[in-house]
């Protein structure tokens, strides 16, 4: 649930989602769920000439499994907090798996 919580802190920020089909979509992150499905508002496709498919589309729902990268603004991310949360999540995973 770490990255679910992380993305919730990024709601209303502008991000670029790069998909596995090589298309990149810029938009405002409006919603995320446990599968890391993403809703973006007010989108613009990065290479509009190459990908005219979404020229009439304002908002999109993106299935989490088709995402390759999400480009984020560094200013909004607290890396120390992320690292601490990661260590806690790793410990939680270990105690869930182990305990033999």
């Amino acid at each position, binding site marked *: 649930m770490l990255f679910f919580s992380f993305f919730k802190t990024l709601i209303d920020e502008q991000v670029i989602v790069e998909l596995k089909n090589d298309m990149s979509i810029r938009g405002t992150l409006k919603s995320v769920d446990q599968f890391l499905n993403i809703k973006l508002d007010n989108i613009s496709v990065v290479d509009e000439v190459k990908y005219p498919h979404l020229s009439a589309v304002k908002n999109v729902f993106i299935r989490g*499994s088709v995402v390759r990268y999400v480009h*984020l603004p560094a200013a909004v991310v607290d890396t120390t907090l*992320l690292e601490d949360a*990661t*260590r806690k999540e*790793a410990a939680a995973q*270990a105690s869930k798996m*182990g305990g033999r």
Partner: protein
Amino acid sequence: MADTSADQLDNAIVSEPLDLVRLSLNERVFVKLKGDREIRGRLHAYDSHCNLVLSDVEETVYVMDDDLEDLKTIKKQSEMLFVRGDAVVLISPPSQS
């Protein structure tokens, strides 16, 4: 905010492969991805799916120019990047080339 002594001991134990990744937190790492891609960046977060958050990232994409049998590389930079774990092949300390 400080680790309790029990947490510190737990943090020092390396028992499963992802524990090795934990040792690289806040260090630069080299990540190999599916699709002939590589990434170098500073690791800030990961989970059991190998989802990652990296900063100061350089991505290298290897492209085969089929007709000319030419291997091209495309390099891209990113200040902060989330990488979905299903594409990750390996995570390692960087080997500078």
